[in-house]
C-alpha cells in the first residue's frame, strides 16, 4: 500500500520534471529564434531571458556570442555557430539542435555584439556559473558578482543560497545579499546587512559603504552613523592586515638582503677583507640563471634547480680566482684590497656589458613561482616571495650547520678567530682563505639567482647591493651570522614600513642615515664580540 503511494509520487515527480525541462527547451528555442531580429537594444533583455532559462545550451551560446562566433542564415533565420580551425576550414553547428550541419547556402550574417553587451554577457555567465557543479568556478563567479551586485536579482541569489553548501561561497553570497540590502536603503534590513558586512574585508564592500555614507537622502542620520562605525571596524582590520602584509614584504626583502650579505659576512668576518666585487658575484649568479634558461629552454620549470648550483659554482670559482690573483697579495692592507676589488668589479661589469649587451635581460619565472596564496581579501602572499624567504632561511641554516660541523668550517672559524694560532696548528690558512672566499662568493651567486626572480638582470644589478650588504654585516656585528640574520630582517621590515610614509627613495636614504648614526653609537654592531680592549 505504502509502496504504491511511493511509486505514484516518484512517477509524478518524473513527469513533472520532464515537463519542466520540455518547457525550458521550448522556451530556449523560442528565444534563440528571436536573435536574428534583435538589435543592440532588444538584445540585452533577450540575453537576460536566455540566461534565466536555465537551459544547458545557454551557457555555450553566451560564450560564443561574446567571441563573435554566432551567425544566422538571413533566409531561414537558422542560428548557428561557426568555428575556424588552424587551417582556416570552417565548420558549422546548429545552436538549437547542437548538431553539426553542412555549409549553409547564401551569405551568413553575424549576430553583432558591442562592449556593453559583452559586459552584460560576462555578468550573466557569472550568474550561470553560480550553478556550476565545479566549486572553483562557482567561487570565482561569486567574486565576479560581488564587483557589481546590481547585476543579479535577489531571488536568484536566495535560490542559490538555499542550495549552496560551500562555506566560503556562502559567505560571499551573504555579503552580496547584505550589500543589496544596504543599497536598497531599507532601514529595517540595515542592521542585518551591517552585521554581515562588518566581518567582510572585501575592497568592494568598503567602496560601497563609502558610497552609502554620502547618500544622505537615502539613509537617516543614525543609519549613517552605524555605517560609519562599521566602516571604521573594517578599516581597522584592513590596517592590521596591512601591517601583516608589510612584515611579510619586509621579511622577503630581508631574506634577499640576508642572502646577499652572508657571503660578505663570511669573507669580511674571516679575512677582514671587504670585497667590493661582492655585488658583481651576485650579478654573475643572476646571469648564470639567464644562461641556464637560454641553454635549456624546455626545462623552464626546473631551471632554478639547475641555476642554484650552477650559480654557486660560477661565482664561487670567480671568487677563488680573485682571491688567488689579487687578494692574497694584499694581506693586511684592507684599504688596498677595497680598491683592488673595486677594480675587479669594474672589469666584471664591463665584461658582462660586452658579452651580454648593456641592456637588461629578462629572466623567466617558472610557473610554480607565480601566483599567490589569498589568505583573506585583505591579505595575500605571493608564492615567489614565500619561497624566497624559505629558501634563504634554509641556505642560512645549511651554512650554519656547515660551519659548525664540517672540518672546513672548523678551520674557517679557527682562522677567523686567530690567524697566527691557526697557522701554528698547521692549518693552511692560504687554502682556507681561498675556500672561504669561494664559499662567500658562491652564496652571493645564489643570491643572484633569487634576485633574478624579483628584478631585471643587468650589469649594474650588483652595485645596489654592496652597500646594503655591508650595512647588514656591520649592523649585525662583524663575524656574527645570527647578527646578520637579525639585522637583515629588521632592515627589510624597517624599509617596508618607511616606504609608504616617505616613498621608496626617501626610505632608503633614511635607513642609510639611521645606520650611519647607529654605527657611530655602536661601532661593533648589534652583537659585538667581547674581550679585552686591544
Amino acid at each position, binding site marked *: 500500500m505504502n509502496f504504491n503511494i511511493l511509486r505514484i509520487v516518484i512517477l509524478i515527480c518524473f513527469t513533472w520534471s520532464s515537463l519542466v525541462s520540455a518547457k525550458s527547451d521550448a522556451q530556449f528555442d523560442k528565444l534563440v529564434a528571436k536573435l536574428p531580429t534583435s538589435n543592440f537594444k532588444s538584445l540585452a533583455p533577450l540575453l537576460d531571458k536566455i540566461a534565466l532559462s536555465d537551459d544547458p545550451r545557454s551557457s555555450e551560446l553566451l560564450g560564443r556570442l561574446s567571441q563573435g562566433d554566432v551567425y544566422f542564415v538571413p533566409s531561414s533565420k537558422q542560428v548557428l555557430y561557426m568555428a575556424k580551425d588552424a587551417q582556416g576550414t570552417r565548420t558549422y553547428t546548429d545552436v538549437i539542435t547542437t548538431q553539426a550541419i553542412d555549409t549553409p547556402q547564401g551569405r551568413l550574417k553575424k549576430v553583432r555584439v558591442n562592449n556593453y553587451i559583452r559586459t552584460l554577457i560576462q555578468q550573466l555567465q557569472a550568474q550561470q556559473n553560480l550553478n556550476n557543479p565545479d566549486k572553483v568556478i562557482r567561487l570565482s563567479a561569486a567574486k565576479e558578482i560581488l564587483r557589481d551586485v546590481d547585476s543579479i536579482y535577489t531571488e536568484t541569489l536566495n535560490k542559490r543560497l538555499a542550495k549552496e553548501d560551500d562555506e566560503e561561497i556562502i559567505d560571499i553570497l551573504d555579503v552580496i545579499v547584505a550589500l543589496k540590502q544596504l543599497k536598497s536603503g531599507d532601514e529595517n534590513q540595515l542592521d542585518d546587512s551591517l552585521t554581515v558586512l562588518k566581518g567582510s574585508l572585501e575592497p568592494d564592500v568598503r567602496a560601497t559603504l563609502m558610497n552609502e555614507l554620502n547618500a544622505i537622502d537615502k539613509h537617516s542620520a543614525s543609519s549613517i552613523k552605524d555605517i560609519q562605525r562599521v566602516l571604521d571596524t573594517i578599516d581597522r582590520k584592513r590596517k592590521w592586515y596591512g601591517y601583516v602584509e608589510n612584515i611579510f614584504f619586509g621579511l622577503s626583502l630581508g631574506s634577499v638582503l640576508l642572502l646577499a650579505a652572508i657571503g660578505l659576512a663570511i669573507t669580511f668576518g674571516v679575512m677582514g677583507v671587504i670585497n667590493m666585487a661582492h655585488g658583481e658575484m651576485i650579478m654573475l649568479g643572476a646571469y648564470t640563471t639567464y644562461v641556464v634558461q637560454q641553454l635549456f629552454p624546455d626545462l623552464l620549470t626546473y631551471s632554478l634547480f639547475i641555476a642554484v648550483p650552477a650559480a654557486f659554482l660560477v661565482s664561487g670559482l670567480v671568487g677563488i680566482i680573485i682571491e688567488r690573483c689579487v687578494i692574497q697579495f694584499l694581506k693586511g692592507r684592507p684599504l688596498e684590497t677595497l680598491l683592488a676589488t673595486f677594480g675587479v668589479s*669594474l672589469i666584471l661589469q*664591463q*665584461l658582462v656589458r660586452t658579452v651580454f649587451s648593456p641592456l637588461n635581460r629578462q629572466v623567466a619565472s617558472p610557473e610554480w613561482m607565480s601566483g599567490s596564496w589569498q589568505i583573506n581579501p585583505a591579505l595575500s602572499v605571493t608564492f615567489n616571495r614565500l619561497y624566497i624567504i624559505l629558501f634563504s632561511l634554509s641556505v642560512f641554516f645549511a651554512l650554519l650547520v656547515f660551519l659548525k660541523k664540517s672540518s672546513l668550517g672548523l678551520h674557517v672559524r679557527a682562522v677567523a678567530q686567530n690567524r697566527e694560532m691557526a697557522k701554528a696548528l698547521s692549518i693552511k690558512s692560504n687554502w682556507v682563505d681561498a675556500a672561504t672566499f669561494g664559499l662567500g662568493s658562491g652564496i652571493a651567486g645564489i643570491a643572484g639567482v633569487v634576485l633574478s626572480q624579483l628584478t631585471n638582470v643587468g650589469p649594474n644589478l650588483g652595485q645596489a647591493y654592496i652597500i646594503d650588504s655591508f650595512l647588514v654585516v656591520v649592523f649585525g656585528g662583524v663575524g656574527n651570522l645570527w647578527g646578520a640574520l637579525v639585522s637583515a630582517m629588521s632592515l627589510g621590515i624597517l624599509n617596508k614600513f618607511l616606504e609608504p610614509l616617505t616613498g621608496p627613495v626617501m626610505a632608503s636614504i633614511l635607513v642609510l642615515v639611521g645606520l650611519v648614526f647607529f654605527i657611530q653609537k655602536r661601532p661593533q654592531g648589534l652583537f659585538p664580540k667581547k674581550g679585552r680592549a686591544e
Partner: protein
Amino acid sequence: MMMNWFSTSLRRVCLTLILTGVYVVIANVVFPEGSIFHVSSYTVNLLGKYLCYALLALSLDLVWGYCGIMSLGHGAFFALGGYAMGMYLMRQIGDRGVYGNPILPDFMVFLDWSSLPWFWSGTDSFIWTLFLVMAVPGVLAFIFGVMAFRSKVSGVYLSIMTQAMTYALMLAFFRNEMGFGGNNGLTDFKDILGFSLQSNNTRLVLFMLTVITLLVAYYVCDKIVTCKAGKVVLGIRDSERRVSFVGYNTVSFKVFLFTFSAILAGIAGALYVPQVGIINPGEFSPINSIEIVIWVAIGGRGTLYGAIVGALVVSFAKSKLTGLMPEAWLFALGGLFVLVTLFMPKGIVGLINNPEARQALINKLSLRLARKKGA
C-alpha cells in the same frame, strides 16, 4: 743658488704651475690659430677641468695620504660645492630661461612651484655663494667627522660609511622635490658676475683662477703637512693610539683635516661647474668618488704633487681612451686599480723618486713571471 731655491717640491710645483698657466694664456691669446704654438680655447677649457680634478685629488691626498682616512665621500663634497655654484649660475640666468620667469629657474616653473625654496634664498649673491661653496661641504664633513672619529670609526668602516653617505646624497639629489633640478641637475648657465660664460675671455679668466686656487691650496696644504700638526697627523696615520698617549686629542686633528679637505673639494667643484656648464646628481655616484682615490693612488699618495700628477695623467688617459675605444675605458680603469695596488703602492711619483722602488717593482714582476713559468 737658483738650483737650491728650486730644490723643494713646493717651489718646483708652484713654478711649474705658474709657468704652465702663463704659457697657456699667452699661447691662446697671442699666437693666432694655426700656429704650432697656439693652444685652442677648447684645450684651455679642458686643462681648466683637469686642474679642478687636480685640486680635488690634492684634497683627498691630504686625508688619505697623510692621515689614512680613505674617504669615498670626496665626490660628494665636490658635487656639493658644484651645486652651490650652480645655484648662483641658475639665478644669473634671470628671465632669459625658457619660461622667462625672472626669479624661478626653469625646472621650478615646470614643477609648478610658486616661490623659491628657503635654501635658494640669497643664492643670487656671489659672496653668499662663495660662503655656501665652502660652508656646505665643510659643515657636512665636520658633523660626519665628529661623529665618526669620536666613535673611533676608521679604516674600511669609515670608507664604506662615507660611500653610504655619498650614495644617500645621490638618491636625494635625484629627487625633484629636493629643489635641485632632479635628474637633469642645473644647466643652461649664461653668465657669471655679468660676464658671458661662452666668451673666450671669461674662460681664460676661469682657467687662471683655477691655476691660482690650485697654487694657493697647494701652498696651504704643504704648510699644514710640514708643520707640527702635520707630524701629528702622520703619527695618527701610523699609530693613532700612540698619538693619544702622547697627549694629543686625535679626534680634533682628524676632524680639522677632514673638514679642511672637504672645503677644498667643494671649491674644486665650484670652479669646475662654470667651466663644464652643468652639474647633475651623477656627480654623486660612488664610482666618481672612487676614481678620485685611484688618481691619488696612481700619482702617489702621501706626496702632494703625486696627487696632482695622478689626476692629470688619469684624466688625460681617460679622455684619450674614451675617444678611441669607449668600451675599453672601464676595463682599463679596473685594471689600473688592481695593478697599482699590487705593483705600485707608492704610485708614479714613488717610482720616479725612488730607484729602490723601481727595482722592487721589476723584481716583483719578474718573480711573478718566473712563478707562472715554473707552474
